């Protein structure tokens, strides 16, 4: 039975429409994943050097033992944010004569295929083989590997268990997040406990008494069993799924938008789309997080003025990039309805311009407190803001006419490749690189501000030319609309 499940799983992977029929996309994705893994591997190989630099007074193995628990704590935190529940896949098996235990075991094993379960090995095995194997011998090295396995499995099932619990009661996840944050604060801020000492306490003992390896293994198995029992009691689709119990959904209006007439109505619909669906909501969340981007670069003097352009671009324009790259795929589910209805496509485009301009404006206003780092920062931001609402929006809409991929709004955004195609890959280049092509020659000649004024000027020019661009985009859309609509109908 398990082998049948595995076969189905493989078929699901290869036949899934979103894993990309296109070979080029598969290759690019493969390279990106390999690159990410290579980065981790490199980090793993130079871990001993890093530890030497970071803790010059400590013994290398002591330093290593000290950081492991931190890793698993952050691992748990990020799993909690990013790991998806592998649940809905069981639906077609539930009514067949297959034992519940088999299905649950399958579910549990399916959840192990996650990038999170690979990283600890990539990160720590090089160190274990380079240093521990050398100094403490094979048995201890294996003890470390098994201990890491135990903690990884523990984290894996703990995060899934808590996520499942929080499906039934949303407060569980809030409580757990607060608990983790408090735990970290206890160490960093209040110095009540030290994970370094705690981590060393355990892994230090492991060095001398390898029997301790059973502690994480037992913990891992225990939480697996808890998870197993929980699933067995709650193997009902509505409890497994990611949709929460629905509260009363009220109709809302955004009054000031009605001033814009039909365009305003379209924009109001799109705002509702963003706020009421999981994936689009995460694009908006990312936009909010990005607003703090400047703190990384402006607080440190080693980042020059070029970074201001970069930050300005991202902070005022991230929404245009992250949401805009999938246009009109967000509306794929009801695209037929839009085409048949009386919606004028010109109004539709105007709605998009209005939406992006609105959100970028809000983002720009929110970044004005960066004036703390000098008014010049605000000047750069303003120029990039003009660039974004002038040029970036137009570029994004141009590529939207070339995007035939549907987006399932109910899925989360992290590690979600759905809707990603060549369009999205190509889109990034003109969007991010062009302002620098204008900026750098002037910066190099020592007239950076002139470069910025030109960037802003281009933005204004494009804003003034909007009616022209809308006409062009509309004409362009009509040549591609059947292809777009057909692509969106393909689930």
């Amino acid at each position, binding site marked *: 039975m398990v082998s049948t499940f595995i076969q189905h799983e493989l078929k699901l992977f290869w036949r899934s429409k979103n894993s990309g029929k296109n070979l080029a996309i598969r290759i690019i994705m493969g390279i990106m994943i390999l690159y990410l893994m290579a980065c981790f591997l490199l980090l793993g190989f130079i871990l001993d050097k890093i530890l030497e630099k970071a803790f010059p007074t400590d013994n290398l193995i002591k330093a290593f033992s000290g950081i492991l628990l931190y890793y698993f704590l952050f691992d748990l935190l990020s799993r909690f944010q990013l790991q998806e529940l592998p649940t809905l896949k069981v639906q077609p098996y539930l009514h067949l004569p297959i034992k519940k235990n088999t299905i649950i075991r399958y579910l549990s094993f399916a959840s192990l295929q996650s990038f999170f379960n690979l990283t600890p090995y990539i990160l720590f095995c090089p160190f274990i083989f380079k240093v521990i194997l050398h100094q403490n011998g094979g048995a201890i090295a294996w003890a470390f590997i098994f201990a890491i396995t135990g903690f990884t499995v523990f984290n894996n099932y703990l995060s899934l268990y808590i996520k499942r619990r929080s499906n039934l009661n949303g407060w569980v996840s809030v409580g757990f997040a607060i608990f983790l944050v408090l735990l970290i604060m206890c160490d960093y801020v209040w110095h009540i406990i030290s994970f370094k000492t705690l981590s060393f306490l355990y892994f230090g003992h492991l060095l001398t008494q390898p029997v301790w390896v059973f502690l994480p293994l037992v913990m891992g198995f225990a939480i697996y069993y808890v998870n197993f029992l929980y699933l067995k009691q709650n193997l009902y689709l509505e409890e497994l799924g990611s949709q929460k119990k*629905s*509260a*009363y*959904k*009220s*109709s*809302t209006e955004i009054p000031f938008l009605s001033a814009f007439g*039909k365009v305003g*109505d379209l924009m109001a*619909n799109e705002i*509702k*789309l963003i706020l*009421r*669906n999981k994936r689009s909501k995460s694009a908006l969340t990312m936009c909010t997080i990005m607003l703090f981007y400047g703190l990384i670069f402006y607080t440190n003097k080693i980042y020059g003025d070029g970074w201001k352009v970069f930050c300005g671009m991202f902070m005022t324009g991230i929404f245009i990039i992250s949401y805009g790259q999938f246009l009109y795929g967000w509306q794929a*589910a*009801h*695209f*037929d*309805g839009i*085409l*048949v*209805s*009386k*919606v004028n496509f010109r109004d539709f485009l105007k709605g998009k311009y209005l939406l992006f301009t609105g959100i970028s404006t809000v983002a720009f206003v929110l970044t004005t407190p960066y004036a703390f780092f000098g008014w010049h920062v605000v000047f750069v931001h303003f120029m990039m803001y003009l660039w974004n609402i002038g040029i970036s929006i137009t570029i994004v809409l141009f590529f939207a006419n070339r995007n035939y991929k549907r987006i399932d*709004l109910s899925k989360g955004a992290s590690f979600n490749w759905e809707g990603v195609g060549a369009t999205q890959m190509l889109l990034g280049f003109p969007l991010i690189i062009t302002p620098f092509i204008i900026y750098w020659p002037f910066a190099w000649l020592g007239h950076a501000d002139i470069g910025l004024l030109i960037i802003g000027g281009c933005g204004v020019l494009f804003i003034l030319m909007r009616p022209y661009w809308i006409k062009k985009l509309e004409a362009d859309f009509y040549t591609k609309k*059947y292809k777009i*609509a*057909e692509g969106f*109908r393909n689930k």
Partner: protein
Amino acid sequence: MIEIKDLKKVYAGVAVVNVPHLEIRKGESVGLIGNNGAGKTTIFRMMLDLIRPESGEVLSKGENVAHSENWKNYTAAYLDEGFLIDYLTPEEYFYFVGGLHNQTRAHVDDFLSGYTEFFNGEILKKGKYIRDLSKGNQCKVGVVACLLQSPEMLMLDEPFANIDPSTQIRLKGLLKDLTKNQGMTTLVSSHDLSHVTEVCDRILLMEKGKIIKDITTNASTLKELEEYFTVGMTAE
């Protein structure tokens, strides 16, 4: 009202729709029937300019639907849930559709109050998004959104498939009333032969992309159709 000329659509070398000529006159109520894969939905989609035909054209009031958008002013259609904006509440959706035809909210509310019975208390003020409604209730939202536009031409693809018996009866009554008393042209497809023969004056029977029968409904139509489908079964 609608005229189809040499309309052809080919998928993977097979003609899924191949209609040399068809005319639907104003005020007619037409039923479209045929087994799965006969090309019913495809012909609907071409009439609504959602897919590009290989050849031929669809004229609505003499204008090619692919070239002019005037037909959108007097045509309303509900083919599937893809026509609904599923993250809106039904009320929001009705206001949106009404707004497209320059109707005020008060007008929409007034219109909806006439459908309380049809909705059976399951649509309005339930605090649900359209995506959380059952398929049958989504269908109700789609049909009423069509009627809200007071169209001259109404197209429904299998409206009876997911709705409960009471609603089926109400919908049939509604459709009959619309054609008889308001002169609306209707085109309805269905797998249920008794529904279409009851509602429609004219029946088009499709098989493998072709319209092979075009009959005016009379007392023996249902029997005739049932015979056709039974024979079709034994022949295969």
